[in-house]
């Protein structure tokens, strides 16, 4: 069946079986391989995307459940001219990534956090991000990157 979604502001239609996950459609049908699949049971958070602005596990969602909604993936985070989102810039500056596999999920979860709470404390950042697993960084630089991005975003005019 055909499913039409808005992905990063562009309307996209894919022909899929009802049992196909949103993650697989994004990756294999739409070529958006920035969304990664780490556990396929909703724990690691690598596949996190925003659905109408709220973070969801795209490995636990069928593509048909997202029909007609706005999906934002990591590919939609930077500006159209390639300027990095403040979170992306802060992850770079603070060495908030190593292998990069979990990174898109962290970026999307952090973006939802900063949309809701522009001035999180370190403890709030840690709690919010506890739904995403990273095996490389020990989280310290990820937390610092989110705090740095928040600070920079608050400082922006």
């Amino acid at each position: 069946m055909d499913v039409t979604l808005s992905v990063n502001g562009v309307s996209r239609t894919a022909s899929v079986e009802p049992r196909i996950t949103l993650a697989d459609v994004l990756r294999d049908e739409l070529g958006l391989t920035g969304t990664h699949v780490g556990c396929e049971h909703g724990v690691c958070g690598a596949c996190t995307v925003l659905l109408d602005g709220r973070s969801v596990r795209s490995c636990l969602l069928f593509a048909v459940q997202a029909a007609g909604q706005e999906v934002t993936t990591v590919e939609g985070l930077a500006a159209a001219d390639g300027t990095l989102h403040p979170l992306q810039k802060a992850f770079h500056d603070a060495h908030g990534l190593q292998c990069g596999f979990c990174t898109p999920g962290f970026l999307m979860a952090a973006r939802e956090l900063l949309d809701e709470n522009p001035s999180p404390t370190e403890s709030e950042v840690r709690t919010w991000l506890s739904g995403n697993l990273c095996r490389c960084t020990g989280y310290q630089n990820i937390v610092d990157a989110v705090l740095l991005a928040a600070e920079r975003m608050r400082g922006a005019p």
Partner: protein
Amino acid sequence: MTTRLFGERVARSEDRRLLTGRGRYTGDFEPAAAHAAFVRSDFAHARITGIDVAAAQAVPGVLDVFTYADLADGFADRLPLLVPSDKLIAPRTQHALAKDEACYAGEVLAMVVARDRYVAEDALERIVVEYEPLPAAVDLDRAAGPNAPLAHLDMTDNLAGLVTEETGDVDAAFAAAPHVYDWTLRMERSASMPIETRGVVARYDEREDRLLVHDATQAPTGVRFGLAMLFGMDPDRVHVVAPDVGGGFGVKVIQFYPEEVLVPWAARRLGVPVKWIEDRREHFLGSNHERGQIHHVHVGAADDGRILALEDRFLHDTGAYCSYGLILPIITAAQLPGPYDLENYRYELRSIFTNTVPTSPFRGAGRPHAAYVMERVIERVSKELNLDSLDVRRRNFVKEFPHHVGVTFQDGGPTVYDSGDYPKGLATLLEQLDLERTRTEIATARAEGRTVGLGFGAYVEGTGIGPYEGASVSINPDGTVSVATAHGSQGQAHETVFAQVVADELQVPFERVHVTTGDTRRLGFGVGTFASRTAVVAGNAVLLATTEVKRQAAAVAARILEVAPEDVVFADGAIHVAGAPDRSIPLGRLAMASNPTRYAFGADAEEGAKLSQLAYEGGDRPLPEGSHPGLAATEYYSPTSGVFGFGFHAALVEIDLETGHVDILRYVVHHDSGRIINPMVVEGQIHGGVAQGIGGALYERIAYGEEGQMLNATFMDFLMVTAAEMPRIEEVHTETPSPNNPLGIKGVGEAGTIPVSATIANAISDALNTPVDHMPVTPEEVLTLAGKIESP
């Protein structure tokens, strides 16, 4: 102007693509490929008496289903023994598809290839396997004992290998020791658990007779040569690429996992690209584990706490197979003495087969056990003799280098510490900790009824082992520099740190240096990224190759500028005559000049052609004898021995006696890995290592039931630390250069993990005033130790 990037916190070149969703991981290739899925043994140990695949074959969209009977030639043989040893009594590796006996739950029995993974898994459900279940050896103690269930039908016990070694005169030292103790220490099984699982994607082009494999491996070069041999193909027609790899920590280098052989085999047989991306359950059941060991130590101590004699008899759980031979327990045995000078040391290691997932190195690789055992020994001796354990450590430190430990290292040579300054390292840690203030705070907290404790851990880390790594460096006509090393990065920033080395040597802007890793099309010879060896071995190869390119460039420039090669200087992306910066040639133009042919576009082309005439003027042929076109070199670095980093950790913990939760109030790290190329990257490695160490100390264990079924093969049940549990790590460095390699560096990849179990165990022991001799210390275990609940 000379710039120097070595030692600077250079931000990473690889970040931009990874942050924007443009990384290329194995799963991102060939979206339209057919997918493989595997039937895995339901039983820990069983005879396979039949596999009926007819119903699966009939599922629409299934291309084919394969069992052992379909394999022939080398594919039907057992997979290779990666690290042979004459001490290995029973070398056992598995078949790519089990022949007639499955030896662990998860062992692959059959392969389905179908239109997509969904259909492949539909077909899996229709395959009927006839099992004849057999008794399973699961518990390590039991498996090592008499009348144990046998892990392999053709064996009479479960002993895979046995090694004993002694330095000094241990018996005499025990006889003379005033204090003698016997303790048993246990560490449970865990696993690397990268967030990206394993994966293999293969495409065989029959007309070109060319095989291209993308493999989330830490060692593409070995996979390439192995596949070429298996297929009887010219290695030049087999390409293996480890693209962006989403974490490895050891589990992604086995050479070979069954799937690494079967997926290319199926792609060639079926004539279509075939893809297999491991799911998380498969990763738990089918990718290697580590850590399970039981140590019985016999310790002789002097009144002042000096260790006069140490004997360690230990069991290592090798799982169902032993493709890594005895390497893990040998690492444990060689590095058990840590920073201490043990004149009289003897070990006896027994590697034991069990019907569980095979084991191979996971970050730390035998060393976390070693540090845990040795540091618990130091603490217990100190406690028994009522001494300050820091004083006992200082009294036992190795003080002169090079230091011969007296036993065999993992590379087969003697274990020799190249350099170190352990008193300074410990002092640096204690300064950051502020020991006196911390002790006062602990006294205050205890007076308030809080359960707090302070623990220390020390380690050495043998890194940078051979046999070799290589690097290719070439200067391009546009002034950029291409660098290639053999094996991929799993997040260690190879692209950045190698570019730092090259940029310094050639004095070109960092941005102009482009590093490719893990593509056998670029560099075919290499060993792999594991054992904290890449910065040391490949890094020094990068230096050697760059030095050779520099020599070539200086020779060509000298001819053009009509000066001696010694009289040219590299600066600002160009070469100029010493003392005459205006007499210069940009490196790109020099690259053009060094290749006397006509090919270039652009404004520099004509100038480059003229220069090439100048460069070779007066010779009897276009290329002077002994030279080659271009400015390019491939060089290999082969270390004489490992190089030993070291460090000290301290943890201040508070224990909740109601829940058993261990809260880490402070975690302080001292670390020394010689000269540091990029402190930001090194700190990141330490952070990640400590997090895995804390997981291993408090949360992570692979649990098996009595029948050999894994009980916690999900991320809901196997607990890894999250941002919420991790303390902020305080990190201080010293730099004791290695005299053994030109860059003076030592590896760091595993350093963070090694002493964490020791440190946390000692902190909990201090808090509860009781020995902690079993890791991990789960909340249940904490409450048992605290006497709050009965031992289960």
